[in-house]
C-alpha cells in the first residue's frame, strides 16, 4: 500500500517549545536539495495570531498546509494550531479537529501513528525536547512498523520528559545530541539519493 505514493522518505518531528532552537538549527542546515518530506508537530497555543512557520524557518520553506494538500518530496509542513495533522497512504495531508490527545491538538502521537501506518519503513520519527509524554506511543508505532526513531539526548533538552519517556519505554531508538540528529537526517538523505542512482 505504501507503494502507491510518491513520498519516498518521510521525517516526522515532534516537540514542545523547548524544541524551537533545535528546529531553527535544523531548518538552517537542511540543504536546498534535501529530498525527504518533513512534518513538524509542536505543542503550541490556539486561537492566537502566529507566524511560527516563519519563525522556525525564515527562508519560507516551512508551511502550514491546508487540508487535502498533497505532500511533496522536499516539502516541509508544520501542523497548524488547533488541528491534528494526519497523512493518507497516497501522500495527502488530512487535518482533524477531534479531541485533544495528551492535552494537545496538534498531537504528536496522532501524526506519528498515522505516518507509521501509512508509510511504514519510509518513516523516520524524531522526538525532541518536550514537557509531556505525547509522542512516545507514536514513536513506538513507527518502530513497530519498521521505521527509524531518533530521540534527543535528554541531557541536551530544555525539557527532558518527552525524550526521557521514549528512552525509558522503547527499544530500538537512537539517542543523539541535536547536531547529531541534524547530521543523521542529512546523511540518510544523501545515502538514499546515492543508493537510488547506483
Amino acid at each position: 500500500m505504501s507503494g502507491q505514493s510518491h513520498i519516498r522518505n518521510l521525517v516526522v518531528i515532534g516537540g514542545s517549545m523547548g524544541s524551537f532552537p533545535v528546529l531553527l538549527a535544523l531548518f538552517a542546515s537542511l540543504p536546498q536539495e534535501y529530498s525527504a518530506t518533513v512534518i513538524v508537530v509542536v505543542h503550541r497555543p490556539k486561537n492566537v495570531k502566529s507566524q511560527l512557520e516563519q519563525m522556525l524557518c525564515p527562508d519560507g520553506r516551512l508551511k502550514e498546509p491546508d487540508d487535502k494538500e498533497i505532500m511533496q518530496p522536499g516539502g516541509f509542513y508544520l501542523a497548524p494550531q488547533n488541528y491534528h495533522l494526519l497523512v493518507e497512504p497516497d501522500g495527502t495531508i488530512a487535518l482533524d479537529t477531534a479531541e485533544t490527545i495528551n492535552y494537545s491538538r496538534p498531537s504528536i502521537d496522532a501524526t506519528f501513528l498515522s505516518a507509521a501506518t501509512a508509510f511504514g519503513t519510509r518513516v523516520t520519527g524524531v522526538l525532541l525536547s518536550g514537557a509531556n509524554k505525547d509522542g512516545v506511543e507514536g514513536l513506538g508505532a513507527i518502530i513497530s512498523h519498521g521505521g527509524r526513531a531518533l530521540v534527543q539526548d535528554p541531557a541536551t533538552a530544555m525539557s527532558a520528559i518527552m525524550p526521557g519517556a521514549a528512552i525509558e519505554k522503547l527499544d530500538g531508538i537512537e539517542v543523539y545530541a541535536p547536531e547529531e540528529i541534524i547530521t543523521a537526517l542529512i546523511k540518510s538523505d544523501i545515502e538514499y539519493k546515492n543508493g537510488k542512482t547506483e
Partner: protein
Amino acid sequence: MMGEISDDDLRELVTLVKSQHNYDLGNYAAASLKRRVGRYLSQCGISFFELKYRLTNNQDFFPELLEALSVNVTEMFRDPFFYRALKEKVFPILATYPVIKIWHAGCSSGEEAFSMAIMLKEAGLLHRSRIYATDISREMLERAAAGIVPLHAMKDNTANYISAGGTEDFSEYYSARYDYAIISQEIRKQIIFSQHNLVTDYVFNEFQLVCCRNVLIYFNRPLQDNVIGLLTQSLAPLGFLAIGLKESLQFTSHYAKYATVDAQNKIFRLRG
C-alpha cells in the same frame, strides 16, 4: 492505547455499511475515520468483530455508530480573528437585508451559532436575523437547543470572545448551573436547530451567509465537492461562504464561482 484498525478492516467496514445500511462511508476521509472507529472500539471495549456483528444483526445500531463517528469538538469563537473579519467585512453587507438568513452547517453542540448570535446582537442585527443551525447528531442538537455549554470551557470561550472584539461583559450572555453554562434565551431565540445530513440531504432554504467550518475535512475530495455544491446552491446571489481556516475551495470545481473576501479567514462571496 487507542483501539487500532487496519486499512483492510476499514475497507471491510465501509463495504458492510454500504450493503447492510445503504450508507456510503467510502467518501469520508480515511485517516480520520480510522481514528474514530478505533476510538469507538476502545471506548465501548468491543472488538472489531463485535462491531461487525452488531452492524449486521441490529438495525438500530448504525445510526448510533454514525453519531459516534462524527467529531463534536467545538468552542465558542474558535479562531477569534475570523469573527473580527465577519464583523468588519460581512456584517455591513448583511445589514442591508431586511431579514438576514444564516446557516451553520454541521453546528455540533451549537457553540459557533451562539457566537454568531452574540456578534449579531452587538452589531444591532440579531432581532432581524434567522440562524439555522443543523447537524447530523440528534444528541448534539438537543444539547444545543437547551443552550448547554460545559462550564470548564467558559474560560477559553471568554478569552476567545475578547480576542474576537466582543464589547460587552461576556458573563451577561450565560448563567452558570452546576457544571454547565446555559446560554441566555435572548441569544438563542433567533436560532433554529434541526437535523440535516450534508451527505444525504438537500437544499432547504436560501441564505446570505453559510458557515461550514471544519466539517469538510472529514470528507474526501469528491464528497467535499458535492457538499460545497450543496452549500453553493443554498446561497442567495452574492451570498457569503465561510469554511475552516485550513480548508480550501481550491481543490473543488466550485472555486471559480467565488471571489475571495478574506483569504486568511477563508471567507468567500458568490460572484454576481
